[in-house]
């Protein structure tokens, strides 16, 4: 099986990732993918570049555990998460979550589940450059609420 989690600076190619995800598996009837990108505004302010930090080893292990949970819960056939770290610019791709399952309902749900989980439980931190200087991004209560919909208490914010 291909590597499920990649934390790295290098960009990713959605088409290539999806092709690899379902390669040779005739049981796949649905693929859902989410791509998060860097905006040029945040809380009404202009954003320049962004810097992403992670906890090498733990970040990968945490996301692996989330994928394990999603595989069982949504009967996935395959899943892949790529998260970029280091310096990123507005419009850059930042995160990919792609899942493959037999039917679309499971794929849509698993994709959202993994993003909700990752946002509040994966050790990753964003620092944004603003006209007033660089600042660490605050966690959002709405992200905890999104994960709570799946019956998981986050307690991140």
């Amino acid at each position, binding site marked *: 099986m291909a590597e499920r989690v990649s934390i790295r600076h290098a960009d990713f190619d959605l088409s290539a990732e999806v092709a690899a995800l379902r390669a040779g598996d005739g049981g796949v009837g649905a693929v859902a993918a989410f791509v998060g990108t860097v905006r040029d505004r945040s809380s009404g302010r202009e954003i320049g570049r962004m810097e992403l930090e992670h*906890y090498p080893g*733990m970040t990968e292990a945490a996301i692996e555990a989330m994928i394990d949970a999603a595989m069982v819960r949504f009967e996935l056939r395959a899943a892949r998460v790529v998260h970029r770290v280091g310096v990123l610019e507005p419009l850059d791709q930042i*995160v990919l979550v792609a899942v493959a399952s037999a039917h679309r309902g499971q794929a849509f749900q698993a994709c959202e589940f993994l993003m909700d989980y990752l946002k509040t439980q994966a*050790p*990753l931190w964003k620092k944004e450059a603003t006209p007033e200087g660089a600042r*660490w991004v*605050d*966690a959002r209560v709405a992200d905890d609420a999104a994960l709570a919909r799946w019956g998981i208490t986050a307690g991140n914010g």
Partner: protein
Amino acid sequence: MKIQVRYFASLREALGPAEAVEVPEGSTLHDLRDLLVQRSPLHAGALGRERAVRCALDQRLCSEGTVLGDGAEVAFFPPVTGG
């Protein structure tokens, strides 16, 4: 016993990437945080109880009630903001 403490994001900027700490047998993460707060005003500012801080023991998220073992790797960091 000896604990290796690591910091990330804003805590790393304030306190550096890592430090070694000696704690009594049977200490919890809560005890360790209290002990660190005593180390310096910088520690108090970064790890004080008024700050939202999350922690991991041996690279797994955990609550502060968790008991530490010798040689453990503990990490303190702010709420996560990836995705």
